[in-house]
């Protein structure tokens, strides 16, 4: 499936020539990407070093044991069930909100993004309160679905909004019915969005900690934290992390295979016509049910639960000095980390769109692999390295910010990548031809045009930092108490009432970021 068949050949030729040209003219961007990736390799290198240090026999003993088998089964089913369900839900919601005449489509679109404002562990906290004793795989899949599907809904709905209806019209005029048009024309064009979003969801499932602790569902990440809490940096934790990295590799390979290399930018004169909305007619009421139920489960439940605990806790739980200090620290970490991660993502995102190839795949795989590692593994590597070799950086802001960058780089890259993909490469070439230096040409065209993606990426990274637990606890300077840490500490002592104000503030702080994401995805479609 080519979305712009007429232009495929000349573009391919031009980009081949362009590649040869840029290889000599822009090596710095590749170097920058390599540097970022080398940094990202630190945790991997650390685990390999540990494996070599403890010897093969011990590795076998720690990896090939029944516990690891249990965890593999849990992790496999979690991903294999949650991701397809998320895709189905997101595509259905995206179609309803973007391509049908569903009443209140804008409101429903916003409500489909809003669950992102509720940290995953707060979703879990809400459900454990509502249904005490809920646990296991079913609960894991359900809560993961409502917590993480917006990561798929956002790109899918944005892509759906941008589709050129001309293609669908052509297909229809060639005799395809509406369903077949959807499956043969619309769905394939959503492939990049679905792949990117699915990968993001899959990686979150592998790395999530708090959500699964509440519902007693063991994954590799929870098992690593258990080991960490028992042994700090013991070999068993590192070997579990090794298996987790292998899982992540499997996801990456899958995504690359499915994603393909097709070009999706629209090139041609004029702008795409806005797609007409399908009439739901009698199906309107049943169709309204889907976004309504999702909103109640994903937003209603957390809000009602937090409200319930706030009422139960009364004024006592609002310890304002504690809360304002935590809020300030969290805001600072989130903003600084978001800026750093976005800047580090630029070279990689650019390469992956403009110069795909073996080097780019290796580098990208590196970044995604590291991004899928639980915070605790990255933190473990950085703690050991800083304490042994870079003592002045130990327990400093620099180290925690580097950890955030490594962890959340994929979020920044994916957002930027989608944005750069839409900035026509022709502009960059034109700028070069008009005499700008390579760096300047890039800056004044693709990077500026990808500002919406960068902003979306920053919002995503900030959201991640806002909800981060384990790495913050291990790496942050002494005395650091973020909103997430305070929430976790109180809920760990099953003082759910005292944890409620922190949950509320986290949600309130996330809402504007989520709103920004929503607005951004609208603006990208020119609305």
């Amino acid at each position, binding site marked *: 499936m080519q979305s712009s068949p007429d232009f495929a050949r000349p573009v391919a030729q031009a980009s081949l020539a362009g590649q040869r040209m840029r290889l000599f003219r822009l090596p*710095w961007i590749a170097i920058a990407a390599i540097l970022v990736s080398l940094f990202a390799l630190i945790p991997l290198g650390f685990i390999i070093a540990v494996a070599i240090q403890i010897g093969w026999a011990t590795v076998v003993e*720690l990896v090939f*044991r*029944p*516990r690891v088998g*249990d965890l593999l089964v849990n992790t496999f089913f979690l991903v294999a069930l949650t991701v397809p369900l998320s895709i189905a839900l997101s595509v259905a919601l995206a179609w309803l909100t973007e391509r049908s005449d569903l009443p209140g489509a804008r409101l429903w679109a916003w409500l489909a993004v809003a669950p992102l404002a509720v940290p995953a562990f707060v979703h879990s906290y809400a459900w454990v309160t509502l249904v*005490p*004793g809920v646990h296991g795989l079913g609960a894991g899949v359900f809560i993961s679905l409502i917590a993480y599907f917006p990561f798929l809904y956002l790109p899918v709905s944005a892509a759906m909004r941008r589709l050129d209806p001309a293609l669908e019209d052509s297909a229809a005029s060639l005799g395809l019915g509406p369903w077949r048009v959807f499956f043969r024309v619309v769905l394939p064009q959503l492939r990049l969005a679905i792949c990117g979003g699915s990968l993001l969801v899959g990686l979150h499932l592998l790395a999530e900690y708090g959500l699964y*602790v509440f519902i*007693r569902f*063991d994954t590799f990440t*929870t*098992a690593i*934290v*258990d*080991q*960490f*809490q*028992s*042994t*700090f*940096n*013991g070999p*068993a934790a590192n070997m579990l992390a090794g298996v987790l990295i292998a899982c992540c590799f499997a996801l990456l390979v899958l995504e690359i295979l499915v994603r393909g290399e097709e070009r999706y930018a629209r090139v041609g004169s004029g702008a795409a016509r806005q797609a007409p909305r399908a009439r739901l007619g009698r199906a309107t009421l049943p169709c309204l049910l889907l976004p309504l139920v999702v909103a109640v489960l994903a937003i209603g439940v957390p809000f009602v639960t937090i409200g319930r605990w706030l009422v*139960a806790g009364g004024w006592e739980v609002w310890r304002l000095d504690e809360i304002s200090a935590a809020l300030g620290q969290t805001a600072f970490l989130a903003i*600084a980390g978001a*800026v*750093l991660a976005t*800047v*580090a993502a*630029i070279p990689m995102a650019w390469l992956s769109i403009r110069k795909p190839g073996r080097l780019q795949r290796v580098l990208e795989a590196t970044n995604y692999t590291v991004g899928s590692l639980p915070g605790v593994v990255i933190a473990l590597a950085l*703690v*050991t390295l800083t*304490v042994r070799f870079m*003592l*002045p950086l*130990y*327990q*400093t*802001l*620099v180290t925690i*910010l580097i950890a955030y960058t490594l962890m959340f780089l994929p979020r920044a890259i994916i957002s930027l990548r989608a944005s750069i993909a839409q900035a026509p490469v022709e502009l960059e070439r034109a700028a070069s031809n008009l005499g700008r230096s390579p*760096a*300047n040409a*890039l*800056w004044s065209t693709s*990077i500026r045009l990808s500002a919406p993606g960068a902003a979306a990426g920053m919002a995503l990274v900030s959201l991640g930092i806002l909800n981060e637990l384990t790495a913050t*606890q291990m790496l942050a*300077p*002494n*005395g650091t108490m973020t909103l997430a*840490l305070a929430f976790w*500490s109180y809920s*760990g*002592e*099953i*003082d759910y*009432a005292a944890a409620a104000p922190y949950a509320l503030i986290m949600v309130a702080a996330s809402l504007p970021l989520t709103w920004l994401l929503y607005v951004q995805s609208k603006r990208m479609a020119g609305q």
Partner: protein
Amino acid sequence: MKSVFSALASAITLATILTTSPVSAQEKEIIVYNAQHKSLAEEWAKAFTEETGIKVTLRNGGDSEFSNQIVAEGAASPADVFLTENSPAMTLVEQAGLFAPVNADTLALVPKEYQPSSGKWVGIAARSTVFAYDKTKLNADQLPKSLVDLADASWKGRWGASPSGADFQAIVSALLQLKGEEATAAWLKAMKENFKPFKGNGTVMKAVNAGEIEGGVIYHYYWFGDQAKTGENSKNVELHYFKNEDPGAFVSVSGGGVLASSKHPDEAQAFLKWIAGKGGQAVLRDGTSFEYTVSTGEAANAKLVPLADLQAPKIDPATLNSKKVTDLMTAAGLL
């Protein structure tokens, strides 16, 4: 693109400035690695600062995590004081040779049974193992006579614990000390078959209260703490003390020590003395922690069953082995 690099450069510079800002300007400040409950340590720190003007910065975490972290940090550890919930973590740091001797006047406050003979750390509080059970489901005669009984097939699926916590691991270390390695490994294997895992002792009690399990092996103070608050998580729960010098009657000693690498040893020693002394023990007695006091002449909270009545097994806290316990638990598939 240059501006991107300069943005990156300025971000790093800013971060470096912020992190290397003069910490030493505040002379009277100590850093405490706190594995005790956050609320308890905060109460201690606040009262101590008010009394002495010495600022206390807490880093919160768990026993085993911190003990291993301190060992990894070695002489470079930023910590001045280390506080735990259980003693195995103390032993680990002591064996690495990282503790300074505790001042003699502090040691004199606490009876010999709550401190190691080496004098490298000192007991600051204590907690008793209990079997928290659902009183709507179990009668007194249906309760296990010993912790060992929970390995019996008749208990399959009926009890819970928090195996990843240092608390439960301390209880296992007592079992190891009393019954030996072989018996402990067999017991853990049976436990893996029988029990339901939870994260955190409070969660275990909550599950007992909700009827998910009939009983759980935890420490006593979770129940008292919840009763003093809303009682919402413990209204169906009763505590069973094993007594009879059973491994399940184990009383765990919470410890405090001063790091040899401390840059503020006098302030650190003062803080430890304050906790082991009248002020710190009064917080235990009158506050909401419900942990036992350990200092001579400092009575515990009146609501608690007196320590002397618990018939705890006699175990030298310095002999408890945390490394062996985690190895055995990993081998049993519990970790």
